[in-house]
C-alpha cells in the first residue's frame, strides 16, 4: 500500500483532510486509465486515417496492437493495486481472466447462440422457418454430394495420412536418410493450403490430347504413351485427388507424433518377443501396435477433425466445381454467395455437431495418452 495510507493511519486528521486525500487518490487512479485510453484511441485514428508509407503503418500497427494489449493489463493492474485490500483480492483475478472470457464470449460463445437461432430462421434471419434449413441440408442434391464427399475425406484422408505417417516413421528410423526424410515430409505442414493448391495444379493440370501437357501426371502418362486424363473434372476421382493434397500436408504430422510414440515402446518387450521367436510382422502387430494405439487414435481423430472442416483445399483447387463441394464450401457459398444466412447457419451447426464428438474423444484420449 502507499505511504499516504500509513500516514493517514498514524495521525488522526480532520474529515476534510481525509476526504481530500481520498479525492486526490481517486483522481490519480482515474487519470492513468483515461490517459491510456486517449493514447490507444489516438493510435486507432492514426491507423484509420493515415496516408503514411506502408512500412510505417505496419510498424505502428504492430507496436500499437501488442503494446496496447500489454498496456491495458498494466493499467488495469495498476488501478486495482490502488484499491482497498479487501477489494484487490476479489477484483484482480477478473483482471487476469476477464479479457480472455470477454473475447471468447464475443467471438465464439455469443456467435454460437446467434447462429443456432438463425439456423431456424429464413434467409435474412427474420421469419421462423422451423426445421426447413436442416431439411434442405439433408435433401438438397448438392448437399448430399457434399456430405458424401466429407465422408470420403474423413475415411480416405484420415486412413492414408495416419497409415503413411506410421509407415514412414518406422521406415525412416531404419534408414540412414532419417533426418532428411523426416524434414522433407514434415515441411508441407508449413505451407498454406492455398500454396499447396498452386503446387498441385502443376501435377493435375490437363490439356486436350495432342497438345503439350504441362501437368506432371499427364506428362508421366504421356511418357508411357497413354493419353491425358482430365483429373479434376471426373467424380469421385477428383475428390480423392484433392484428398491426396491433404495427405501430402498431414502425413508429416502423423509421422512426428507416431515416431515419438514408437520411441517409447519398451525395448525389453520387443526383445522378449523376438527371443520368443516372433517374426517382425508379429512383433509389429502384437507388440508395437497395441503399445502405440492410444497415440494412433489421437492422430487419427485430429486429422479426422481437419477433414470434417476441410475448406481451403477445395476452395483453392476447384471452388467446389465438378461435384467436389464439401460442407464447409457449401456453407461459405450459402453465406457469402447466396446470402442465405438461415441455410448457412444450419450448415455451420451441422459442422459443429459433426466435429464435437470427435474433439471430445480426442481430448479425453489426449489426457490419457502417454508418450
Amino acid at each position, binding site marked *: 500500500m502507499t505511504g499516504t495510507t500509513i500516514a493517514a493511519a498514524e495521525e488522526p486528521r480532520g474529515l476534510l483532510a481525509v476526504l481530500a486525500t481520498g479525492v486526490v487518490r481517486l483522481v490519480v487512479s482515474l487519470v492513468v486509465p483515461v490517459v491510456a485510453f486517449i493514447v490507444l484511441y489516438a493510435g486507432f485514428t492514426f491507423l484509420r486515417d493515415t496516408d503514411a508509407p*506502408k512500412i510505417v503503418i*505496419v510498424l505502428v*500497427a504492430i507496436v500499437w*496492437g*501488442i503494446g496496447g*494489449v*500489454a498496456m491495458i493489463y498494466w493499467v488495469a493492474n495498476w488501478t486495482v*493495486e490502488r484499491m482497498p485490500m479487501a477489494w484487490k483480492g476479489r477484483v*484482480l*483475478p*477478473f483482471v*487476469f*481472466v476477464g*479479457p*480472455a*472470457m470477454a*473475447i*471468447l464470449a464475443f*467471438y*465464439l*460463445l*455469443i*456467435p454460437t447462440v*446467434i*447462429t443456432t437461432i438463425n439456423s431456424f430462421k429464413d434467409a435474412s434471419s427474420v421469419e421462423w422457418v422451423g426445421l426447413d434449413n436442416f431439411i434442405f441440408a439433408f435433401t438438397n442434391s448438392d448437399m448430399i454430394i457434399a456430405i458424401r464427399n466429407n465422408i470420403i475425406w474423413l475415411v480416405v484422408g484420415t486412413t492414408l495420412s495416419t497409415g503413411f505417417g506410421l509407415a514412414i516413421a518406422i*521406415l525412416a528410423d*531404419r534408414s540412414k*536418410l532419417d533426418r532428411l*526424410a523426416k524434414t*522433407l*515430409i*514434415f*515441411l508441407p505442414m*508449413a505451407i*498454406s493450403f*492455398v500454396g499447396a493448391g*498452386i*503446387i498441385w495444379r*502443376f*501435377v493435375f493440370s490437363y490439356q486436350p490430347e495432342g497438345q*503439350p501437357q*504441362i501437368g*506432371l501426371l499427364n506428362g508421366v502418362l504421356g511418357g508411357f504413351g497413354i493419353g491425358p486424363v482430365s483429373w479434376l473434372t471426373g467424380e469421385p476421382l477428383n475428390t480423392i485427388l484433392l484428398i491426396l493434397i491433404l495427405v501430402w500436408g498431414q502425413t508429416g504430422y502423423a509421422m*512426428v507424433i507416431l515416431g515419438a510414440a514408437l520411441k517409447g515402446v519398451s525395448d525389453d518387450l520387443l526383445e522378449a518377443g*523376438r527371443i520368443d521367436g516372433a517374426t517382425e510382422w508379429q512383433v509389429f502387430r502384437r507388440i508395437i501396435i497395441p503399445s502405440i494405439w492410444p497415440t494412433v487414435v489421437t492422430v487419427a481423430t485430429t486429422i479426422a*477433425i481437419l477433414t470434417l*472442416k476441410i*475448406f*481451403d483445399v477445395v476452395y*483453392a483447387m476447384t471452388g467446389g466445381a465438378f461435384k467436389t463441394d464439401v460442407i464447409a464450401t457449401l456453407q*461459405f457459398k450459402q453465406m457469402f454467395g447466396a446470402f442465405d*444466412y438461415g441455410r448457412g*447457419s444450419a450448415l*455451420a451447426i451441422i*459442422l*459443429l455437431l459433426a*466435429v464435437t464428438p470427435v*474433439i*471430445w474423444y*480426442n481430448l479425453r484420449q489426449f489426457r490419457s495418452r502417454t508418450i
Partner: protein
Amino acid sequence: MKTSRSTTILINGTVIFLIAIWTIPTIGLFVTSFRDKGSMATSGWWTVFTGNTGTLSLDNYTTVIFGGDGLATAFLNTLAVTIPSVAIPILIAAFAAYAFAWMDFPGKRLFFITVVALLVVPLQISLIPVLKAYLAIDLNGTFLAVWLAHAGFGLALATYLLYNYMSQLPKEVMESAAIDGASHFTTFTRLVLPLSTPALASFAIFQFLWTWNDLLTAQTFLGTDPNVAVLTSRLIGLIGSRGTEWHLLTAGAFVSMILPVVIFLSLQRYFVRGLLAGSVKG
C-alpha cells in the same frame, strides 16, 4: 536388430521413393517460377532438364512483387496481420491461464469448462455474427478486426495449453514468491512468463503458421482490397482472375511460402514439442 543387406537396400529405396513423391511437386513449382510465360504454357517444367530451358530468369518474381499485383504490399499486410495475431492471444491466454492455475475466484470452474467447451466451435459458426457486429461498429476491413478475430479463434486452445503447462510449475516457487511479497502481477511477469517460454514458443509457432496461412478469416474480416489484403487472398485472386497468368502465380506462391518455411525449419524443435503437447486446432 540385425537387418540383412537386401533389406537395408529395400528400406532405403522406399524412403528415397517417398522423399521423391513428397518433394517433386514443390520442385516442379520452383522450376516453373523461373520460366517465361511462353515456355511455361507450352511445355512441362521437367523439359528444362532435357535442354528446353527457354528463358530462365527472376522476371516472374520482380513482376509479381513490384508490378501491378504488388505482392510486396500484401507481404507487409500479412506481417501486420500475423505478428499481433500471434502476440495478442498469447498474452491474453497467458494471463487467463495463470489465473486458472494459481488464483482463486468465484466461477473459476465454470469459466474453465467454458474455455474447454469452446474448443469444439468451428470458426464458420462465428463468421456472420462477428461480421455483422463489425459492420455495425464500422470495424471491418481494419487490422484490429482481424487481430481480434484471430485472437478469438486461437484463444481457447492457447488458454488450455498454457494452463496445462503453468499448472505444472512447482508450487514452492509460487509460494516463495508470495512470501517475498511479490504481487500476482509481478509473479506473473517476472517468474511465470519466463518459466513458460517453451510453451509460449511452441504455441507462437503454431499461431504464426495458422494466421500466416489463413484464408477464411482474412478474406472475411479484412477483405480483398489490395491495400490491406493478405498474401493468401491475393493469390486466390490471381487464381481466379488470371487463369492464363500462371507464371505469376508460381512466383507468388513462393513469396507466400518463404517466411513460414524458414521459421518452420529453424524452430522445428519447438514445433515438434508443441505438436506433442497437443497444439492442434480443433
